[in-house]
């Protein structure tokens, strides 16, 4: 894999770094990064990322907006927070990656059937609709969001696991468990979205 680099002779464009500072949760701490690599070295699946967090942060500084927002780095973060507790400069790495993932999706960089994006959307659908996560419905909605064929394939592959959960009473049959105050919850969430859009 070749690593994208800024064009030779090009001066650093800080506009993307400034955008990250002002718009990404924890982005205001990014300027503390001294490129030591404790984050990438601590990451459980850093080797599966296009770039580890250390490199991604340098790319932000180099103004490589397209490469950063289309990277799989932020989507592979498992939220283990090892980088957060190990960063000697107190950079909230996990939080930054989590918000970069959200913004990548918002700006259309996670195109088509996208495992993480689709799973997150299925998850939120359940939380916002029922007030709770229904593991059965989130999983099925996610499987079929990847396409009808893929949905059946995954559903079949997980049949045995599901049956084991039903047998042990860890997956119930029937209506989802729900928060009674769903109407109020929906109003709260709608208002929160409206407030966020003001920013």
């Amino acid at each position, binding site marked *: 894999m070749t690593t994208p680099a800024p064009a030779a002779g090009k001066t650093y464009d800080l506009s993307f770094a400034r955008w990250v500072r002002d718009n990404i*949760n924890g982005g205001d701490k990014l300027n503390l990064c001294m490129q030591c690599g404790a984050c990438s070295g601590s990451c*459980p*699946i850093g080797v*599966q990322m296009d770039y580890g967090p250390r490199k991604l942060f340098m790319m932000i500084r180099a103004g490589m907006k397209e490469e950063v927002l289309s990277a799989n780095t932020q989507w*592979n973060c*498992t*939220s*283990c*927070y*090892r980088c*957060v*507790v*190990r960063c000697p400069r107190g950079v909230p790495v996990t939080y930054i990656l*989590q*918000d970069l993932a*959200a913004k990548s999706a918002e700006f259309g960089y996670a195109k088509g059937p996208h*495992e*993480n*994006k689709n*799973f*997150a*959307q*299925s*998850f*939120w659908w*359940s*939380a*916002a609709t029922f*007030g*709770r*996560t229904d*593991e059965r419905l989130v*999983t099925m909605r*996610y499987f079929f969001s990847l396409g009808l064929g893929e949905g059946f394939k995954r559903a079949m592959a997980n049949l*045995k*696991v599901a049956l*084991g*959960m039903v*047998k*042990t*009473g*860890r*997956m*119930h049959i029937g209506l989802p*468990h729900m*928060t*009674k*105050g769903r*109407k*109020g*919850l929906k*109003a*709260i*969430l*709608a*208002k*929160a*979205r409206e*407030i*966020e859009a003001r920013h």
Partner: protein
Amino acid sequence: MTEKKTMTYYPGCSSQGSGKHLDESLRAVMPEVGIEMEDIEDWNCCGASIGHIGGGQLPNLALTGRNLAQARKRGTQDVITGCAACYLNTHGGNEKIKADVKKKAEVNEALAEAGMSYDGDLKVRHACEVLVNDVGVEAIEKRVTNPLKGLKVAGYVGCQTVRPFAGTEAGGDYDAYDDPTFLDDFTKACGAEAVPFKHKTSCCGGSVAVMSPDRTLHLMKAIVEEAAKQGADVISTPCPLCQTNVEMYQPLINEKFGTDYHIPVVFYSQLMAVAFGMDGEKDAALQRNTIRSEKLEGMAKKK
């Protein structure tokens, strides 16, 4: 443990699904060591690690705002949860609301839509931290009537129970991030043997393991492999997602790597229920594990 305490309990969504046995065993053992738990009335999802992607940062924080507004109806007693993700979100969100005046105002503006408000005057705590700081390991040991003699336990702490808050003042400063000892202390207090386990805070893959097991099977394999190597009868964990992932994916691990692992993964609270001489089904919920431990079940009392 000097006095009885009552706390407001946040069970979280997994308590009604994959993590039912954590909820059931916690409800059984906590009062035995002096912690009474009253549920948050009509609680909702915490948003876990991915709520902000589908919903946005502020709506995700509002989920915590609503839960804490509901919790506050029970007064200012501490909020307690056994789920790693619920703790991370609810404690983290609570601290954010406390520290950031603007966020607090925004959350309250949203809560007002349902006639609710939250001032930021609660403390959100993890059940393990409460067991260490308020109950004390000695008091747990004292309550044990049925020591789990000869049971070898690999203590698998996982990530979000300790990271990023276990070593912070607001998080109760009860243990280390990379080499925490509390889980092994619980094991020993129960009369079992804590085997050396180098993967105690390794990641199982979390929600990535749920949506895409192929990307993280090797992480779970390393955990199970090390437990087997150390001769563990069971893996003990505080985290509902770790428990489910490491348990339910063992057949897939075996398929992919040509191994033959079949190690039960239980909650520390299930071990405690058995060691407290409580009922193996009703209190320890051992029948809810898809990989059963004959050894542990043999030790459990039947009432």
